[in-house]
């Protein structure tokens, strides 16, 4: 492990990679700050650029964008009560009241320190958890992987659907259907191409991500007539107040950080859960931990209420890398986007990644520490200046997002067909979003589609066409039992509400 850490440090500390972390954190903070544009959009916009780099550098850049976006999301939550990303909704509960009391600077400082601590502590957990889990996951066989993918897709559908589980599952099927377009990986038989040569290689992953996130996000903002910049009129960005915390505030924050870090990391590791659930659970847990006097302050500018979700959402970001790096199975939409990008580099994440590509495995983990320091430096002294991005009018913002989406695709294929296909998918995605059909399950399914088919193929061939493989191995049966438990829970919830 020491050798791996040194390899990781060597790669992560190269000038190019430090610049990439800085660029990723900066870009992620800005995009994450803009309400409506989350880490997936930020990463999607970055993918075409990363293809010019080495895989480790590309992944370091995307990881920087990821935690930068979650970090940036807290700024808009605190200053204008408009969470930039879902993971920072809970931050607004106490961050915005603090800002209204003239303590915006303090709120931003607490958010910055908590995010830093949460991210750093969980990166340490990741350092130890990832190699151990990699060793365990070497015992996984095709049926286990297939079952694990089914579990991941079910969990993401359950957690991201806000009570609309069936809608999310339909999106999973749609994502898997899109993934089957093109040549079959084993027989090279073309499927669902309608004799169109442009579809022979399948639909590009970047195209689907750009269409379902960046482009449809932009169209949704226009459709709903939302203007993120309008909210900035509520608060003067140049008068944020002091960022210095007194002893009492520091003590409160230091009490919240350790427990929220552990909770955030564990939630992040679970498939489908991620930063949003982690932050809400940490907020709820913190409320139960504090005394009655502190409890009354929740929702009115409590330090505990701000520090807990901020710590947990950043801890969950690092935690979500565990299933991606060790099993090759992303637990969230954002890490699914990263998996897609890695596959584009020709890298297959999984239990053997830290043996075959140690520089990628370890440098990503090491770059997280560097990223956290950079984020702290970025967020504390520069936030009054960076926060001005919030005032970017949608009249400029939306065309620029469309431009980056179209250019991203154009640079990859240099043909119009992909641009038109992207516009078509974006229009459908915008319509579906309007009716609360979630997009993260679609992306996760699209990315996992080929792997899922491959593992099902192997499992069925080994068991001579019988579905006994689903319960022959105890591990497969246990994973499927979890899947059934989630489905049963969703069905129970649905009938209980009626």
């Amino acid at each position, binding site marked *: 492990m020491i050798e791996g850490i040194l390899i990781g440090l060597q790669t992560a500390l190269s000038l190019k990679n430090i610049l990439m972390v800085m660029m990723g954190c900066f870009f992620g903070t800005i995009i994450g700050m803009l309400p409506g544009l989350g880490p997936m959009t930020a990463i999607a916009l970055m993918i075409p*650029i990363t293809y*010019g780099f080495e895989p480790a550098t590309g992944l370091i850049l995307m990881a920087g964008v990821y935690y930068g976006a979650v970090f940036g999301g807290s700024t808009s939550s605190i200053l204008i009560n408009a969470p930039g990303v879902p993971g920072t909704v809970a931050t607004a509960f106490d961050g915005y009241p603090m800002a209204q009391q003239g303590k915006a600077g303090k709120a931003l400082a607490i958010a910055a320190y908590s995010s830093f601590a949460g991210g750093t502590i969980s990166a340490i957990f990741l350092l130890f958890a990832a190699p151990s889990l990699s060793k365990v996951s070497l015992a996984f066989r095709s049926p286990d992987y297939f079952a694990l993918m089914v579990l991941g897709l079910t969990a993401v559908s359950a957690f991201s659907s806000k*009570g609309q589980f*069936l*809608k999310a*599952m*339909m999106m999973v*099927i*749609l994502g*898997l*259907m899109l993934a*089957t377009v093109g040549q*079959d990986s*084993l*027989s090279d*038989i073309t*499927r*669902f191409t309608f004799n169109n040569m442009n579809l022979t290689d399948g639909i590009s992953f970047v195209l689907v991500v750009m269409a379902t996130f960046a482009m449809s996000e*932009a*169209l949704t903002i*226009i*459709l*709903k*007539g939302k203007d993120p910049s309008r909210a900035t009129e509520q608060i003067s960005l140049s008068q944020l107040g002091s960022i210095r915390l007194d002893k009492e505030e520091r003590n409160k924050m230091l009490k919240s950080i350790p427990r929220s870090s552990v909770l955030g990391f564990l939630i992040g590791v679970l498939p489908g859960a991620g930063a949003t659930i982690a932050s809400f659970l940490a907020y709820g847990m913190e409320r139960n931990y504090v005394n009655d006097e502190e409890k009354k302050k929740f929702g009115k500018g409590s330090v505990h209420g701000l520090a807990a979700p901020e710590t947990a959402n950043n801890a969950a970001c690092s935690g979500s890398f565990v299933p991606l790096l060790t099993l090759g199975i992303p637990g969230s939409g954002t890490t699914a986007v990263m998996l897609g990008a890695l596959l584009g580099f020709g890298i297959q994440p999984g239990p053997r990644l830290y043996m075959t590509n140690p520089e990628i495995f370890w440098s990503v983990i090491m770059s997280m520490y560097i990223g956290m320091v950079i984020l702290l430096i970025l967020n504390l002294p520069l936030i009054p200046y960076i926060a001005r991005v919030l005032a970017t*009018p*949608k*009249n*400029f913002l*939306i*065309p*620029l997002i*469309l*431009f980056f989406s*179209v*250019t991203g695709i*154009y*640079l990859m294929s*240099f*043909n*119009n067909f992909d*641009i*038109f296909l992207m*516009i078509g998918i974006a229009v459908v995605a*915008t319509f*579906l979003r*309007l*009716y*609360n*059909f979630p997009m993260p399950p679609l992306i996760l399914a699209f990315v996992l589609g080929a792997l899922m*088919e491959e593992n*099902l*193929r192997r499992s*069925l*061939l080994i*068991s*001579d*066409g019988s579905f006994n493989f689903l319960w022959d191995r105890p591990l497969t049966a246990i994973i499927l039992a979890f899947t059934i438990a989630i489905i049963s829970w969703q069905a129970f919830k*649905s009938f209980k*509400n*009626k």
Partner: protein
Amino acid sequence: MRISIDKIISLLFFVLSVFYLYQTYQIQVFSFDEHAPFNAKTFPTFLAYFGMFLSVLFLVLPEKNPTKIDHKVLDYKSVSFLIFITVVYGFVILKAGFFLSTSLFLFFSYYFLGERRWKWMFLLSFPFVALFMYLLHGLLDIYLRDPFLKMLGIIG
């Protein structure tokens, strides 16, 4: 009886699944693969049936909270224009080249969305695209075909 849009979408999803199943049966697998435990048709067949099952389930189960949307407040005009201008951009990007088509796309999009600060509109279109092209072309070595700039002799 009024049917909600959510149900109509699931009905469309059912139609899509049936069409997908039909297309699955059109896949020509190799003769030696026809009766294999797994061939190119197997996974899509599962997907099609599962898609049909889910959409039927959604259709028959009573709806708790159908999505209610006030279509009067939605800005369909601006979205339609943006889609239209992006399609036009997609058409001309190969013919007119990246610089001209992108700059004009950005400029007209700003204008249509109600922007009238001409200086910013100009700066964030023509010079911005030129800088972006320089970054791609000059620094990252990514080739961008541009017949317009080639005609002017700016790029080779």
